């Protein structure tokens, strides 16, 4: 596509429910990144994919968080048993290659609210 697409744009859920956030990267981009932006905070790196593999999962805040990428394209970030502190904007970015000289292009984000 023309840009990074994230869905849904807004998600309201009840505490304890599972949620899935989707990211569709720019066509041809092999690297995909997930970040979390909490209210008043900067961006917190969660995980990145090179192709379908995730070399670095160290940013995932707990084992309730997982992510997968299939076909080297779409990625899904899953949060199980959501907690109120999971409320944040989840941003996805993609780049041509997973090197710093390849610029990351960001989607508009998914705003997650856990009631």
């Amino acid at each position: 596509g023309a840009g990074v697409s994230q869905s849904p744009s807004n998600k309201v859920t009840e505490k304890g429910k599972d949620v899935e956030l989707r990211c569709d990267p720019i066509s041809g981009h092999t690297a995909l990144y997930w970040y979390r932006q909490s209210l008043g905070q900067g961006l917190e790196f969660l995980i990145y994919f090179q192709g379908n593999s995730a070399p670095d999962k160290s940013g995932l805040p707990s084992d309730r968080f997982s992510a997968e990428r299939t076909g080297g394209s779409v990625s899904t970030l899953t949060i199980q048993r959501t907690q109120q502190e999971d409320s944040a904007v989840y941003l996805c970015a993609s780049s041509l290659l997973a090197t710093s000289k390849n610029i990351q292009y960001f989607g508009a984000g998914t705003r997650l609210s856990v009631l």
Partner: protein
Amino acid sequence: AQSVTQPDIHITVSEGASLELRCNYSYGATPYLFWYVQSPGQGLQLLLKYFSGDTLVQGIKGFEAEFKRSQSSFNLRKPSVHWSDAAEYFCAVTRNYGQNFVFGPGTRLSVLP
């Protein structure tokens, strides 16, 4: 560990005034440096980047930034601010791979008419 600080949480300037947003980093080596802008409800847009060479880099929308190794700084500047520049600005650094992409906490810019 690498870190990025943006000392100003919120800055207010009048339209037409000059702007400087500060960014300082802590890194073991010369990093690659970026400035991103985030308008309300939007994703992040790259304004400019520094990898090497000329320490004064030009970006989009009339922005520029200067890398000063001695001060570990990469301040963003614009000579004349427009109302549409009101947004959140993030400084970021990395060296090798995407997983080490570290963002600062952001500076919110408000523009008075």
